């Protein structure tokens, strides 16, 4: 009888023990470049949404005061000490944080990078906000969607040697055939300078009087182009679109100089990063080249050879949502 009672007690204790284990939330640290940055605050909101959806997930939103690798390493050490389940980092330096993150992985912590990546040996996977192909497809779609009749479109780029812009325009040209009514007439270079971009836009307006849209895949160029269009009194005739920041583009969207533009959505990015970190930490998925990991409402991340994945096409901002995001970033 005594033995029976004893084994009952042991059973009960072990049951309580395992129940307590199951109640332990999965703790995911969202480690950002620095605190007090609207972009990352928005990413945190997304991560909290993911936590609510997944249930039993605790998000630790943290980051240094200044954007230094040393500051992030101190925090990584503190996170390792707390035995968090996962670290999702937007790194200030792709290499300097590697030794600290390696240590975290050795101690069984899931490590992923998002937004600003870490060298492959320091993380299990990286989530980019978008891919070059998706950006190229988006910028021409933004222009075409506003032009059902078709028409002439020009590109205002940064410098002729900027890698990013050249790749994006290249990707755009690949899908140009899908929009037979859209005629891309020229590409001009504003060198990412506000005044030069403004003058190049004025030139475009004079050279191509029938121009219907300007695509500027640069946050400096798009603002200057919108200003030039509005100063020339061509609002409603020429639509400025491309990649820009909501805080800088709010005026142009409100005046109508730009009907819509795109950039990554930090809320979605934080949501996806937290979701992926959870899937990996809970051992529901593995970060292997070619692997597919679910990320809730954002679909599925497919990893490439470097264990990198693109989240989605850039997010479209227009009159319906600009007010909400202009104070974010």
């Amino acid at each position: 009888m005594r033995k029976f009672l004893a084994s009952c007690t042991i059973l009960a204790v072990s049951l309580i023990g395992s129940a307590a284990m199951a109640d332990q939330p999965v703790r995911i640290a969202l480690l950002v470049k620095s605190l007090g940055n609207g972009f990352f605050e928005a990413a945190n909101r997304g991560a909290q949404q993911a936590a609510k959806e997944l249930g039993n997930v605790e998000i630790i939103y943290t980051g240094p005061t200044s954007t230094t690798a040393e500051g992030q390493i101190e925090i990584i050490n503190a996170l390792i000490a707390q035995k968090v389940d996962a670290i999702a980092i937007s790194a200030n330096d792709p290499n300097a944080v590697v030794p600290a993150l390696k240590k975290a992985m050795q101690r069984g912590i899931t490590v992923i990078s998002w937004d600003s990546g870490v060298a492959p040996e320091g993380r299990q996977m990286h989530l980019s906000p978008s891919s070059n192909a998706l950006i190229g497809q988006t910028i021409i779609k933004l222009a075409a969607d506003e032009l059902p009749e078709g028409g002439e479109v020009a590109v205002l780029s940064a410098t002729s040697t900027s890698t990013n812009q050249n790749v994006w325009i290249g990707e755009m040209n690949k899908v140009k055939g899908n929009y037979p009514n859209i005629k891309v007439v020229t590409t001009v270079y504003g060198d990412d300078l506000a005044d030069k971009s403004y003058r190049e836009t004025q030139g475009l307006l004079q050279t191509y009087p029938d121009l219907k849209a300007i695509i500027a895949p640069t946050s400096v160029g798009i603002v200057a182009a919108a200003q030039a269009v509005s100063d020339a009194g061509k609002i409603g005739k020429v639509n400025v679109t491309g990649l820009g920041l909501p805080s800088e583009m709010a005026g142009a969207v409100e005046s109508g100089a730009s009907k819509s533009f795109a950039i990554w959505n930090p809320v979605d990015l934080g949501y996806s990063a937290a979701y992926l970190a959870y899937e990996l930490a809970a051992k529901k998925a593995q970060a292997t080249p070619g692997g597919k990991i679910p990320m809730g409402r954002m679909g599925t991340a497919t990893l490439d050879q470097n264990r990198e994945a693109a989240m989605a096409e850039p997010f479209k901002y227009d009159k319906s949502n600009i007010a909400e995001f202009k104070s974010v970033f």
Partner: protein
Amino acid sequence: MSATETSPGRVIPDRLTGPAARVLRSWETLLVAVAVAIFTFNSFASPYFLDPWNLSDATFNFTEKAMIALAMALLVIAGEIDLSVGAIVALASTAMGYALQFGADTPLLVAIGLGVGLTCGAVNGLLVTRMGLPSIVVTIGTMSLFRGIAYIVLGDTAFNGYPESFAWFGQGYVAWVFSFELVLFAGLAALYAIVLHLTNFGRRLYAIGNNPTAAAFSGIRVERTRMALFLLTGLMSGIASICLTSRLGSTRPSIGTGMELEAITMVVLGGVAITGGSGSILGVVLAALIMGLVTFGLGLLNVPGIVMSIFVGGLLIAVIALPKLFLGGSRWRRSPSR
């Protein structure tokens, strides 16, 4: 009448307090009390605090800055200051990274780190001693100069790919949880304590800090001593740069930003008079420990960095001001020159 006369044979004390009271009321005792309080608080506040490996990781929060603080303490005691130490760390790291591109091996990298530190210290020292410029002005200038060079060389790029053997300085362990950096810091602290408290050189620093003119008239070579101190601070910045670069395995021009203020905070919190003339190495070591315990303890509670800076600032003011407010300025003494 006879009552007011001093009776023969009674010993007239040459101090107002006995030796035991002096130890109890010293600045270092206050710091020990603060350290114990923070240690106890952290142990209760976070279940992860009392773990040898976690505490070992925590030491990296302060070792490099504290190495610089040792030399900075000597400089401040002698009435000078060096605000360029963080920039020296950056320049030394950049020079090591540059040499790495030409295939420099670990011994050469270390030599370059130390050499650049010494050279920068010499620039500061010469400007102060030969030109007679105030050190705060000179080092504000060289702070921008040294870091500016690092930015010109690197721009927004980085040097990395340091050899495995070089990684040992910042990531290696001498025994169990004792990292190379911690052991090096302990050794250096002992050395500095001996130099400051037990040698003629150390005594001269207090004399210079209290009154450089009187020190010069009593035969101390003031300028030569100051020059030595700037060289020493440069050298320590070089050592800190080697440790930090090795720990990060990468050099960016922003490396070591703000180190000068953290080192000076340790010095001031450690009881060294910012006006010169008093202070002890023990105090600085305790202050470094306190800063490390506070930042790590708050980190474990996931307190944001901004709040952490407020806390460190508040601690500094509290530790310095409260004894004066509540006990009167004369009772809690900073260490007198010994």
